[in-house]
């Protein structure tokens, strides 16, 4: 008994020392908007004494930044699951995870297993899941109730009233809606190119319907909120955010399936504060903290039990958008093989230039 007390005292002392030593420490986090809300950052800083420097970004920029510095400049990054293995193979910008430093009991088991499996390169695991969500349709149901799938955005009735991004999720979504399975063609470049050309043609025809290609979340929200557009292809969280102000607008899972993504935690190759990165991961995966992130980002996390802390409205919105069938129908992004971006890029350029 006494022995244990001394031990715990030593641990306490050590951790206290560590805390003071960490007072000047910094965690440079490269993440998405909403994933590191101020409240959570403050709680973390109070608990650990580690300053968190948050940089907001997106998948492509994260990879480009790390590519430019060969994996330096940040201590923890959050690319989507499908962008981990391919980017690691092509540019060697990440560092394997030491899973023993992570409290795996806080994760939903199936998600952790899926992410581990998809981010394994040469036997090393590179990513653990954080936030998941989907892309689908945001529809003003009062005006455009008949928009059920991506291709419905091209209906002449909605000319000049729809918006989507000119990025790869749009190509993939339209491909599924046109009856193709682009994920199945990931390994077959020719087949994939053929599908993409077909989609490109469709999107070129559809261009007249588009009011503007949105590029940032805020631009999308203001287009929908002002009524300038009545339907969009976008993230689920955006739809739910709009739903709080206008009950007519919400996220609709398309009949061909919403596109599911998981944003992960990955260590850059030249991370300078690996310990703080693990601390952050374990901290934000706590159910109560994870619920705060859900409130801020609008998407659910891979944290086990966090649903109990999420507000009822968010749960109701989720259930309204996704039936059990819709959830089964979610198309989860598999890792992107190298070279597909070039095919997609050309198609996107042509659509833009048409």
């Amino acid at each position: 008994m006494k022995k244990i007390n001394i031990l715990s005292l030593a641990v306490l002392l050590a951790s206290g020392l560590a805390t003071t030593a960490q007072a000047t420490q910094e965690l440079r986090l490269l993440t998405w908007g909403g994933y590191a809300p101020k409240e959570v950052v403050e709680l973390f800083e109070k608990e650990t004494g580690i300053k968190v420097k948050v940089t907001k970004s997106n998948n492509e920029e994260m990879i480009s930044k790390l590519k430019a510095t060969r994996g330096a400049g940040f201590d923890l990054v959050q690319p989507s699951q499908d962008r981990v293995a391919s980017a690691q193979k092509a540019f060697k910008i990440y560092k394997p995870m030491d899973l023993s430093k992570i409290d795996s009991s806080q994760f939903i088991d199936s998600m952790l297993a899926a992410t581990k499996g998809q981010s394994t390169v040469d036997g090393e695991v590179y990513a653990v899941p954080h936030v998941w969500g989907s892309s689908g349709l945001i529809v003003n149901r009062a005006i455009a109730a008949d928009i059920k799938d991506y291709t419905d955005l091209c209906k002449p009735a909605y000319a000049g009233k729809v918006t989507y991004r000119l990025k790869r999720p749009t190509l993939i979504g339209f491909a599924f809606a046109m009856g193709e399975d682009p994920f199945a063609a990931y390994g077959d470049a020719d087949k994939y190119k053929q599908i993409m050309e077909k989609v490109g043609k469709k999107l070129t025809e559809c261009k007249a319907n588009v009011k503007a290609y949105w590029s940032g979340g805020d631009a999308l929200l203001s287009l929908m909120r002002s009524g300038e557009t009545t339907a969009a292809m976008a993230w689920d969280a955006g739809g739910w955010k709009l739903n709080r102000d206008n009950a007519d607008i919400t996220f609709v899972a398309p009949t061909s399936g919403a596109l599911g993504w998981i944003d992960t935690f990955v260590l850059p190759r030249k991370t300078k504060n690996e310990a703080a990165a693990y601390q952050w991961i374990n901290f934000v995966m706590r159910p109560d903290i994870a619920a705060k992130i859900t409130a801020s980002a609008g998407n659910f996390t891979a944290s086990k039990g966090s649903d109990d802390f999420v507000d009822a409205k968010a749960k109701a919105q989720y259930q309204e958008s996704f039936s059990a069938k819709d959830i089964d129908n979610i198309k989860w992004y598999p890792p992107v093989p190298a070279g597909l971006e070039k095919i997609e890029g050309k198609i996107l350029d042509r659509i833009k230039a048409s």
Partner: protein
Amino acid sequence: MGNLGANARLKLGLWLLLMPLGLWLLLLIILPHFELLIFSITDPEDGAFTFEFYFEFFTEPLYWRTFLRTAVMSILATILTLIIAFPVAFYIAKMLKGRSKGIVFAMCLIPFWVSELVRTFGWMILLRESGVISNFLQWSGLAAGPVELLYTDATIMLGLVYSSMLFMVVPLVSTLDSLDDSYIEAGYDLGGTNWNVIREIVIPHAIPGIVSGCIIVFMLSLGNYLTPVLLGGKDSLWFTEQIYTQFITRFNWEQGSAFGLLLLVLSSLIVWLGLKASGQSFTKTMG
């Protein structure tokens, strides 16, 4: 002997003075471009020398058309800016005196106290379908329904001209300031009308300012990214956007580097042709 020492010291002083400029040129201009050049002629797979990224520009109509469109729009924006800025500059330099001159000049500067992004968003708020102007037109009964003024080439032009204005006004004001009033009066005195005093006396005098203003505005427009992307909407094609896309979303640095260098070379070529056509030389303009 002492003289020689002083001379050497003078030389050393000169070198020290030139050092920041030299370092700046080397580290921020020459080295990055050198790296771009290396990137653009290296095959990423095997590291071999290749010209494929340059061929890509000339063989894929999409790319050179985008460049051509960017260049033509930039030239147009330059001309428009000149036409609008010239009377403004003339008014500031010649009509106003003392305090009011400073105030009007400062008014031209005010838009530049906020960032380009904020300025561009300002235009979006004004011009969008649910924006201020559209609402005003509906309220006043001039328009039956919402009017979309955003997402057209004209909007891009508006944004470009607006954000370039100052860079045309400043060199024009300084050259027009140096034109003694007596030349203008002499022009009138000898029977000149407004138009030919402007054409034969004011403009020839202002040529160095016009040329340097045009070069700055053209280069700024050509290199602008935010304005065409945010105001242009779905049909906006801008070459810098293409470079950004190659670097950031395609991870295709080689192609991006080639585009970047092509932009540099081709825009320099256009400026050079413009100088030739207007019978000016670069040294004359800058000197």
